[in-house]
C-alpha cells in the first residue's frame, strides 16, 4: 500500500502503516546521528532547538553557497548505530517516524509498538536521489559536532520511496 504523509505525523497515521508499505513523505524532517542523539538525550527538552517528530539517520553532504546551505547528497546512514538511544529517544520526544537504513535488532520491534512509532527504510547509497527530494535547509544546529553529526532541519517533498520496515504493530521486514 502507498501512503502520502505530511509532517507532523500523528499516531493515527502511524498506526495505518504496515510492514512492506511504501511511503512518500513531505514536510520537515531532522537529521541526527550518534552524537546528536547523545546530546539530545543529555539536554533538557526545552533546550532542544528542533522537533523530533520525524528523525532522519543521515549525515548530509552539503555545500554553502552565497550564505545558503545546499544539500548535494543525503542518503541514510546505518541505523543500528543509534539503537542504544532508541528507547530513551522514543520515550522523551514521542518521535513518530525514524528514517534510516539497515534497521534495528528484533528487540526494537517492541519499542516501536509501545511508542506507536515506525521505522522507514530509504535505500542506502542513494544519496543524490534523496537530495533531490530535499527542497531547502531550514536550519542547522549543533554544527560544533561537525557537518555530518549536526542537526539539519530539512524541508522535503515526496521523499521516497520509503519502505515501512518496522511498524507500530510489532512487525519487521528484517529476518531474525
Amino acid at each position, binding site marked *: 500500500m502507498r501512503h502520502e504523509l505530511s509532517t507532523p505525523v500523528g499516531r493515527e497515521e502511524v498506526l495505518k502503516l504496515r510492514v512492506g508499505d511504501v511511503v512518500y513523505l513531505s514536510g520537515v524532517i531532522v537529521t541526527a546521528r550518534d*552524537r546528536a542523539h547523545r546530546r539530545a538525550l543529555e539536554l533538557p527538552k526545552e533546550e532542544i532547538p528542533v522537533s523530533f517528530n520525524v528523525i532522519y539517520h543521515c*549525515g548530509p553532504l552539503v555545500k554553502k553557497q552565497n550564505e545558503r546551505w545546499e544539500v548535494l547528497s543525503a542518503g541514510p546512514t546505518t541505523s543500528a*548505530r543509534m539503537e542504544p538511544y532508541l528507547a530513551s529517544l522514543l520515550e522523551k520526544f514521542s518521535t513518530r517516524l525514524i528514517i534510516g*537504513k539497515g534497521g534495528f535488532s528484533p528487540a526494537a520491534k517492541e519499542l516501536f509498538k509501545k511508542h506507536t512509532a515506525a521505522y522507514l527504510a530509504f535505500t542506502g*547509497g542513494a544519496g543524490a536521489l534523496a537530495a533531490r527530494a530535499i527542497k531547502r535547509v531550514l536550519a542547522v544546529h549543533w554544527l560544533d559536532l*561537525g557537518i555530518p553529526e549536526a542537526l539539519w532541519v530539512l524541508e522535503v517533498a515526496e521523499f521516497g520511496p520509503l519502505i515501512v520496515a518496522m511498524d507500530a504493530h510489532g512487525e519487521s521486514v528484517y*529476518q531474525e
Partner: protein
Amino acid sequence: MRSQLVELIRVAVTSLPRDVEEALQRTLEREENPLARLQLETILKNVAYARERRLPLCQDTGVPIFFVRGFGNLSEVEREIKQAVRETTRTVPLRPSIVDAITRKNTGDNTGEGMPVIHFEGGEEQSIIFLAKGAGSENVSRAKMLPASEGVAGIKRFVVETVRSAGAKPCPPVIVGVGIGGTLDLAAKLAKEALLQPLSQRNPREELSKLEEELLEEINALGIGAMGMGGSTTCLAVKVLASACHTASLPVAVNIQCWAYRYARLRRVDEEWVVEQ
C-alpha cells in the same frame, strides 16, 4: 644494499635493543619474587650470550616485516595526494568525514593523522587507485587470528558469519573481500586489495577460485538480500587474496564493500596520466 639488509636482519634477531635490555635489568633489580627473579636472570643471560655468540635470541624468529619509507618520490606523492583530498573536499565536494580518533573533532578537510590511508607498493607500472570507502561497510568488516587447524572450513565459517551478522548494515548487495594469511595487518590489507579485482576476473589459483564460488553461494543462501529486505542476492562477488603465513597462524580478514563501489584508477599511458574506471 643486499649486505646491509642482511646485517639489519642479523642484528635484529641476535641482539636486544639496549633500552629493552636496560628495562629488563631494572625490573630484575625491583623484583622480589624469587621465581620471577630467576626468569629475569635467565633472560638477561640469554641476551648476553646470544649477542656474544651472534646467535638468534629465540628459535621463533617470526614473520619478516619491513616498513619501507622515504624511497624515491614517495613523500612528494603523499603530499600531492593529501592536497588533492583537501582540494576535492572543497570542490567536488566531499563530505568531511574524518575526525580525530580520540577527541572526535572533525578535521574539516578529510585529512588527519595518517589520513588518507596510503599504501606504497612496488611494481613496474605507475598507477594510483582511489577507493572511497564508506563506514557502513567498513564498520562491519572483521579480522581474526584463527587457530591454524581450522583450515579452509574455519575460514568459510568466519567469512559467512561476518556477512550474516552484518545483515543489512553494509548496504547489500555487497562485494566481499577476503584476505587470508600473512599477519593480522597484512590479512586486513589483502582483504581490502581483494576488492580491487575486477568482479568477473577468475582467481588464478584454483583452490581460491573454488573458495570464492562456494562462499558466494553460502552467503547468498543467507537470504539477507538487498538492503536487508530479503531475497537471493546478498553478495555480488567474493574476492580472495592469500599470502603465506607463520606455521602457527591463520589470519583471516573480511572487508565488506557496499554496492556503491567508488573506485577509479590513474594510470600512466604514453607519458600521460589517464583516469580509468
